[in-house]
């Protein structure tokens, strides 16, 4: 415990930075995945483009992606922006599939009824489809959140100052405690983010509360590799 206590401010700094680096990809994934999900539901061709594209991007391991990205976007490998963009790409890859499924899961009779009542297409999308797709979107964002937080630490290899530094420094200097603290904080962050997201979900989707958790709600969220049905993957890349 001694090491921890004498380095609290450094740990705090790194944690804050870690949080900062995680938030943007999570939000970006959510926002970008919705139009992509909508596109994917238009027809089968678009669906396979979106999902295959997402799957391919998700397949690229993290370190190579950090390195390759500067060729395509005007960043350098060691830039923080580079890291954030890479994480966002992973997040979108995960969420696009989720969003497509979420929008597809809204019952057709409900949509029909809304149009008949007089919702314009845009209003119907934002006020009926999106909210009803909410629960599945929520599940997807929870996966993205957890994966992103875990993945940020890999960024230390390209010089990012986050919790990954604790792993690297701890190993270099032989301080096991440092590594353990890094892991613990990382897990706690993931938990906190998850609780916040679930809380937002409760506020935004009040009709979903007190629903007995049916089998579907407990079903694993599909990740980009599945052709047909859900598979959970383990930790980040």
């Amino acid at each position: 415990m001694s090491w921890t206590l004498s380095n609290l401010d450094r740990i705090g700094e790194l944690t804050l930075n870690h949080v900062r680096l995680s938030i943007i990809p999570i939000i970006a994934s959510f926002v970008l995945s919705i139009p992509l999900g909508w596109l994917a539901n238009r027809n089968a061709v678009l669906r396979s483009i979106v999902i295959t594209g997402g799957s391919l991007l998700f397949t690229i391991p993290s370190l190579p992606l950090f390195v390759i990205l500067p060729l395509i976007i005007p960043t350098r490998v060691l830039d923080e922006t580079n890291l954030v963009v890479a994480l966002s790409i992973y997040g979108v890859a995960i969420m696009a599939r989720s969003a497509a499924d979420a929008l597809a899961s809204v019952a057709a009779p409900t949509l029909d009824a809304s149009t008949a009542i007089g919702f314009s297409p845009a209003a119907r999308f934002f006020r009926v489809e999106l909210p009803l797709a909410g629960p599945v979107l929520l599940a997807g964002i929870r996966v993205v959140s957890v994966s992103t937080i875990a993945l940020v630490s890999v960024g230390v290899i390209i010089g990012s100052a986050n919790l990954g530094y604790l792993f690297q420094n701890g190993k270099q200097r032989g301080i096991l405690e440092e590594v353990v603290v890094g892991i613990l904080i990382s897990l706690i962050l993931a938990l906190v983010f998850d609780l916040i997201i679930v809380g937002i979900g409760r506020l935004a989707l009040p009709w979903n509360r007190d629903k007995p958790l049916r089998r579907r709600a407990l079903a694993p969220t599909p990740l980009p590799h599945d052709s047909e049905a859900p598979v959970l993957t383990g930790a980040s890349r």
Partner: protein
Amino acid sequence: MNLLLGALAWLVDPAHWVRGSQSPLPIQDRLLEHLAYTAIAVVIAGLIALPLGCHIGHTGKGRQFVIGFTGAMRALPTLGLLFFLLMVFGYFLSFDTAPLVGATIAFVILAIPSMLAGAYSGLESVDRQTIDAARANGMTEWQILTQVEVPLGLPLIVGGIRAAVLQVIATVTIASYAGLGGLGRIITSGIGLNDYDLILGGALLVTALALVVDGLFALAQRATATRGLTDSKAARHRTAASRSSRPPTRENA
């Protein structure tokens, strides 16, 4: 663009494929190392996760555990886990073997959740009525598992293995940072020598490896899904319908 061409040139330069060169060369050695680490870890993880996942999928017990477990494992930072295990094993294993053992265990731990989830969800995806009919026809539980559940659940099981393999390939890449071999060595050497050809070349290699492996698995998944299975939408509707109409009476195992 120049950078890309430079890296590609570096990759195809025959000098870099000469046996006996100094690390990080030759390329094929690193490639083989990478594949070897991956294969060993996936096999070990598979021996643990696949039977367990099949058991949970067949009996239906432990679902909550699987879901919770895979969710929690997703939160584990790979670098942290890797370094943690390397250090722990460094305490009581020699300098050479510690990285190998520690890293392999890390790879196994990271590969298990995907295969577990794949096996479990694959078995769960099988139509309950088909299983009920099989049981009523006099198949033993083992026969139901091997002749009905596994063949029909194979696409998802393979999907789980696919995700696990890619997970390990990615982690092996990072593990080079901790002193292991593999293609990641090329990248980290490049970082150390500030040689961008090496960095990008290594990155392209790993990416190519991942895409090829993923592609092969995708084909395998497609292959296991043929042979008379209904298309997924119809199957899902039927499964949903059969679930709501009558709870299968499970008194029979």
